[in-house]
Each structure stands twice: as C-alpha cells, then as structure tokens.
C-alpha cells in the first residue's frame, strides 16, 4: 500500500468513526437493531472465545509449573495465570478470535450490499447506511467484546485452576487466594480498557472495508481477507501502545 493510500484510508476511517458515533447517539435510537446485532455478533461468539481462553489458562498453568520447577513456583500459579490473562491474553486473544469472526462477517455483509447497490438504494431512499448498518454494529461490539473478554478471563482462570488442582496438586484455596492477593484493580481496568479500543477497531475496520468494496463476489472476497489481516496487525500493534499507555496512566 502506498503512503498516500494509507493516509487517505486513515482519514476516511476517522470520518466514518465520527459519523458512526454521532449516528449512535442520534434519535431515534435503533435499539432493536442494536440488540439483534449483539445477539448475532456477541452471543454467538461466546463458544469460540470461551474455548480459546479456557485452554489458554490451562496452558499457562502448565507452562508456569514446568518451566520454573525448582523455585516452588507452583504456589504462584494463580497470580501468574490471572495477571497474564486479565492484562494481556484475555483481551488480545478474544479480540483476535472474535474480531476475525465478526469483522470478516461485517465486511462480507456490507460488502455484498455495496456491490449489489443495496447501499446506494438505501441512500436513494434518504436513509443513512451509517445509522442503519454501521452504528448498530459498533454499539453491539462495544458492549459485547468487553463482556466476552471478562467472561473469557473468568473461564481462563477456571481452566488454570483445573490444571493446578488435578495435575499439579495445588490446593484450590491456595490458587484462588494467590489471585485475590495479587490481582489489582489496575490490572482489570487496563484489560477491559484495551478491549473497548479493540472493539472500536474491529467494528470500524470491518464496516469501512465493507462500504469500500468494489467489484463483484471477487471484490467481497478480497475485502474480507483484507479485514482479517488488517485487524490482526492493528490489534497487535495497538496492544503494545495501549499497554504502555495503561502502565503510565493506571499504575
């Protein structure tokens, strides 16, 4: 991508963001559309996000115990699992997996509407596609991704607990007590805070690529792939800067 395209796209995404947030607040509130999107984008992502985080928690517990065996680290597994999940892996993994699923879905849906002139038809009927399509998706993802992240972190900690108790023979009370003593509010704030930013990135990039799809079925395919790749990279890069930011602000 040439530098000029990049600047143009960034500008257009910023404009779309402004319009989408304004449309979200504008009356009449399309709450029915919002709830439909929350169901479609959020509730149906629960399974895939839950499986990913529960196994991540289990792996974390195992890796911690076996990579540092001599230090009696077994009794600190709880806080290692919880802190890694809540601060980092929970938000990022959920965003990557859920983002790949729903971001590509948004691009495919809106992109198909674009190439079959349904978006133009909507405009020609004096209806704003941003209000009708983009704003409900943005609202739904902003609510559901942080929720999924919190649920996912809980499941991951549970997975770690299972491994700790049944495989490493740590008492459940030791595991949980260690978490309660070490997990701070700052950890939770930075984890959930990140997931709000990831939610915004997923919805805006998914919708933007859909609205700018060109060509036929071929174009929809290209736009969808582009969304998945762009999302993965943008989430990883922004994660670093968000971590930096939250360390500065919260800690």
């Amino acid at each position, binding site marked *: 991508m040439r530098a000029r395209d990049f600047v143009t796209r960034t500008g257009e995404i910023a404009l779309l963001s402004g319009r989408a947030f304004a449309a979200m607040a504008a009356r009449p509130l399309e709450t029915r559309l919002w709830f439909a999107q929350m169901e479609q984008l959020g509730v149906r992502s629960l399974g895939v996000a839950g499986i990913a985080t529960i196994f991540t928690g289990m792996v974390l517990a195992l890796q911690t115990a076996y990579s540092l065996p001599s230090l009696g680290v077994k009794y600190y597994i709880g806080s290692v699992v919880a802190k890694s999940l809540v601060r980092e892996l929970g938000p990022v993994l959920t965003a990557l997996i859920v983002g790949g699923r729903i971001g590509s879905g948004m691009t495919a849906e809106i992109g198909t509407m674009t190439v*079959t*002139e*349904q978006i*133009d038809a909507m405009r*020609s*009927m*004096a209806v704003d596609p941003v209000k009708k399509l983009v704003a409900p998706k943005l609202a739904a993802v902003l609510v559901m991704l942080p929720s999924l992240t919190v649920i996912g972190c809980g499941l991951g900690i549970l997975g770690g607990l299972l491994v700790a108790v049944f495989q490493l023979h740590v008492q459940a009370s030791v595991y949980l007590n260690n978490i309660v003593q070490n997990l701070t509010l700052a950890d939770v704030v930075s984890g959930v805070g990140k997931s709000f930013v990831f939610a915004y990135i997923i919805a805006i990039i998914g919708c933007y690529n859909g609205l700018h799809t060109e060509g036929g079925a071929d174009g929809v395919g290209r736009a969808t792939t582009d969304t998945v790749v762009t999302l993965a990279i943008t989430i990883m890069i922004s994660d670093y800067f968000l971590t930096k930011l939250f360390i500065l602000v919260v800690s």
Partner: protein
Amino acid sequence: MPPDDPLHAPPPPQAPDQARPEAPAQEPAQARPEPPAQPRPGPQALFTVRGLTKGFAGRKVLDGLDFEILRGETFVILGRSGSGKSVTLRQLNGLDKPDAGSVVFDGTDITGLEERDLYPLRRRVAMLFQGGALFDSMTVFDNVAFPLREHTRLSEAEIAAKVQEKLGLVRLPEAAPKMPSDLSGGMRKRAALARSLALDPEVLLYDEPTTGLDPITSAAIGKLIRQIHRHLDVTQVVITHDLDLAQHVGDRLAYLSEGHFRFLGDWAAAKRSSDPELGDMLSGRAWDEEDDHAANARP
C-alpha cells in the same frame, strides 16, 4: 387487487413513437454543448443540468452535458453500454457528485449539497436500480415497507395496506412473504419498483430497467413504466440501451455517446436526424468495432 385499480384499465391505443401533445416541441439535435453562460430553464423544467462533467481515472465519461427534464415527461437517455448513462442518472439524485457543472432540481442546486441535505430531495425522487437492489435480508413486504417505516408515522396496518396497494400496482400481490432470492429477475425488478413507489415520489429514475430480462418480461416492464406514468403523475427518467423500451415509454430522447448528447429531442426529430450513429442505433445495425454486450461493465 382492487377492481378500480387505475393501472388495469386497458391502455388506449397509441403509436409508441408518437410524441405526447403536452410535451413542448424542443429544438432538435444539439450535439455541441451550449455555452453555459445563459442558463435558460424552461417554465416547466424540473431538472436543469448545465455543463455536467465527470471523469473516472483520468477518462472523461461525461463532458459538459446540458439538458432539461420537463415536469411530467418521460425522458429517455439512450446509449451504448459504458457510455456513461448510469453515471448521468446518479447525478440526478446526488448519489454521485460531478467534477464540474450543476444539477438544479425544482429551483435548488443540488451539486454542492451534503449527503444529509439531499434527503428531502431523495424522498421526492425515487430510483430503480439495475439489479433491483432489494435488501436480501428482508422479505419483499419488509422491503416495500422499509421507506414507509423510515419516513412516515403510519401504523403497521396502514403500512400493510399501502404495501399491498403498491405490490398490486406492479402486479405482484402474492410475493409479499417471499425473500428476494426466491424471485425471478423480472419479479425482483417489479418488487423493487413497488418499493420505489412506496413514498409516492414525484420523479422516478430507472437504471436499465430491462437489462438481463427476456423480451416478453422486458415488454411487460415497459408497459408497466408507461402505465405508471399515465396514472401516477410522475416525471420519469429512463436510461437504457433497449430501443424497444425507449420507443415504448419515451416522450423525448437523448442519445449519449462519448460524453456528449449527439441528439436531444422528440422521436419525430430523431427519425429525421441525419446523424449516422443515431441512425445505426435506431435501426439496430451492429457496430463492427466491438460487441455491445462485451462492454457491459459500468465505468
């Protein structure tokens, strides 16, 4: 469908190429663009277009178009595939912005307007898209009800009555519960036409209404366009490369080629015109340079 439905009155016999008496005689054939210095909108002009220019990727698709669309007429823009007809049509409701020139609708210049400020115009100017552009996530009923739910405060019962009335107009009363994917191409266009009619527009813009349809379905669509014009008091703009359709529905015609109107006037003048390319188009003679269907893509 109601028995008093005006569209089901038998159409009076009328030669398809006969100019309507109420359409004022237009000075025929202006291939060259008029100087835009003295805009002189006729008393009945609903759209006044001056110096319309639009290019894509360095290629000028429209190069200074000047024309007027009169209140109550059916104006046909005829042209080969890829000649910029769709681009022209999309300027009339502001879906695309021109590079230069102006489009004045009912006294308002719409070229500089923001998307939001175009909404009042678009409630009065409906558009029928080439593939119908029905929302494929909704039933036909919900498609036709969509503009009503967005722009009116009618109750669901009133909306249902109105939807059935519009579906009756396009002779598709039984299609309401179907999904667009279950309809044939012709039915999809009829359903889309019903949706365009939902808000009782003053102007209807048709983008290639018969493309992709068989000759019989095309003729039926042409008949429908004519009947809607006769009974609903609308101004219509039809862009097409279908000569039969153009002759059937058009009061006046413009022939678009290489960014200019090579001809603009009524049918009698078109028949008298000595322009060889228009003559070829009207007689359906083939060009030897390329197959018409090969260049079907919009620029």
